[in-house]
């Protein structure tokens, strides 16, 4: 019983992080119909930035977060404008290949700059642990969960309540109609890519405090984010959140009950899950569609 509850706690924390990570990918896919294969690398890039900010400027990750979001948005905007938009109307595999190449380039540049030795961003609360009854949660993980949920809420509010957010959803739902009402579709696509990248940077920054990271972790994150987006039905934030929690708890469960290889098993289990879900419900847990909330 004790292990089960600890597993659920760990799973929810992991799930919160996964939800944020996956929502970035989902946003880009939902609006542009582009699968960003560099999403995990973007996340790792964010992690290194948080590490640099802490190491050289002494900034806590929570202080760095707004900066990461701004930089991520700008970086994503430029990347989509310069390399994705020109090929978007061409063959559908082109954006896939471009983002795949981008992933290799980022991982390579990070290796050259930081070597492959794992890094961890330190924080004043790095060694602190919250203990309640017999259950233990590190403060840095609790911070990650809370920040992830806050950011997800902000993203949802942005999409549902603001003019720009609604225009973004509208573009996802009917591109021609968006043009007719005067929405600049190219700009909307770049903003969506920027926003998705900002989310990845933020998720990476939060993650960097909880665990060691290295330049070649990105691929796994991309895969997991993809799994969660498919499971969640792509689109609704609530669907992504549910799928992310599900994957998080399964992963935490396997690593809690199976020693040593549990975490890798968890990842494998997530993929098995996707195959099963897609076989039974091809539309995902909720349904695959445009961006909704």
């Amino acid at each position, binding site marked *: 019983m004790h292990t089960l509850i600890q597993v659920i706690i760990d799973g929810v924390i992991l799930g919160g992080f996964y939800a944020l990570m996956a929502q970035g990918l989902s946003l880009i896919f939902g609006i542009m119909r582009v699968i960003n294969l560099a999403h995990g690398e973007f996340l790792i890039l964010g992690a290194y930035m948080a590490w640099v900010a802490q190491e050289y400027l002494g900034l806590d990750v929570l202080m760095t977060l707004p900066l990461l979001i701004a930089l991520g948005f700008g970086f994503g905007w430029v990347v989509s404008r310069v390399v994705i938009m020109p090929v978007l109307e061409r063959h559908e595999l082109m954006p896939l290949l471009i983002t795949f190449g981008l992933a290799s380039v980022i991982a390579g540049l990070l290796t050259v700059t930081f070597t492959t030795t794992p890094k961890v961003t330190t924080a004043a609360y790095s060694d602190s642990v919250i203990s309640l009854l017999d259950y233990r949660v590190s403060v840095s993980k609790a911070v990650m969960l809370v920040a992830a949920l806050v950011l997800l809420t902000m993203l949802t509010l942005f999409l549902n309540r603001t003019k720009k957010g609604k225009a973004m*959803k509208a573009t996802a*739902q009917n591109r021609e109609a968006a*043009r007719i*009402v*005067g929405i600049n579709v190219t700009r909307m696509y770049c903003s969506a890519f920027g926003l998705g990248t900002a989310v990845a940077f933020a998720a990476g920054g939060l993650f960097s405090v909880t665990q060691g990271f290295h330049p070649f972790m990105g691929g796994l994150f991309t895969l997991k984010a993809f799994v969660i987006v498919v499971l969640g039905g792509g689109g609704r934030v609530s669907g992504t959140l549910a799928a992310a929690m599900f994957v998080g708890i399964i992963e935490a469960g396997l690593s809690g009950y199976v020693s040593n290889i549990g975490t890798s098993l968890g990842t494998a289990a997530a993929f098995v899950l996707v195959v099963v879900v897609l076989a039974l419900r091809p539309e995902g847990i909720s349904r695959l569609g445009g961006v909704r909330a």
Partner: protein
Amino acid sequence: MPTSVPETHTKESSIAPGEVMLEAAGVIAGYGGFDILHGIDLEVRRGEIVSVVGPNGSGKSTVFKAIYGLINVRQGMVVFEGENVTAMGPQELLRTGMAMVPQLSTVFPSLNVYENLELGMYLVRDKARVKTRIDDIFDLFPRLADRRAQYAGTLSGGERRALEIGRSLMLNPRMILMDEPSVGLSPILTKEMFQQLRELRDTAGITFLLIEQNARSALELADRGYVIQRGLVSHTGTGEALLGDEEVRRAFLGG
């Protein structure tokens, strides 16, 4: 049906009120170097409802696209209220006061009716103005007001069309270009919609240019009409005159 390229038979009517609002002169346009329109001349006067009809493949939808800047006009020009708008795209035309309702469904299915209307005024920053304008639209279309919180995707065909027309009215256009507004609507709903267009013309003074497959209804509604065949205007005149024209009837009204 004439075998050679048909020429204009009916002289233009003089009953049209107001000055010329939109004029297409010698428009040649098509796709990928292949011309569909071989020199279209037409004009719409302020306060008129003008229908462009023609058989399938005659090029009437291309007329729409050429005027609205969705395809390049290779030769000739389009003038709207004295301004040369030949090279303008949809965004710019919106600002000049010409709105369009295309043939494809253009509602945002997962946004509600209110949000759909809001986006009709995407180019306007003043929120209070948007709100007032939405109230105006709800006065014109009470059925949309009843469904304001409903997703547009759940509306019936007629309601969707009303929403599209309502949304195109948001920016207060002086002229609305419509491509096949009756597509997907039952005859009764088509009649209702045409009635609504007439009311909009009478009350709000909006000028309409309709491209219609449904020639009979479109000509009954219209003040004037143009018949397009093989990329050229073959007949023009009042709606009544065209409906009565032996040749037009034989060509494609089915006798």
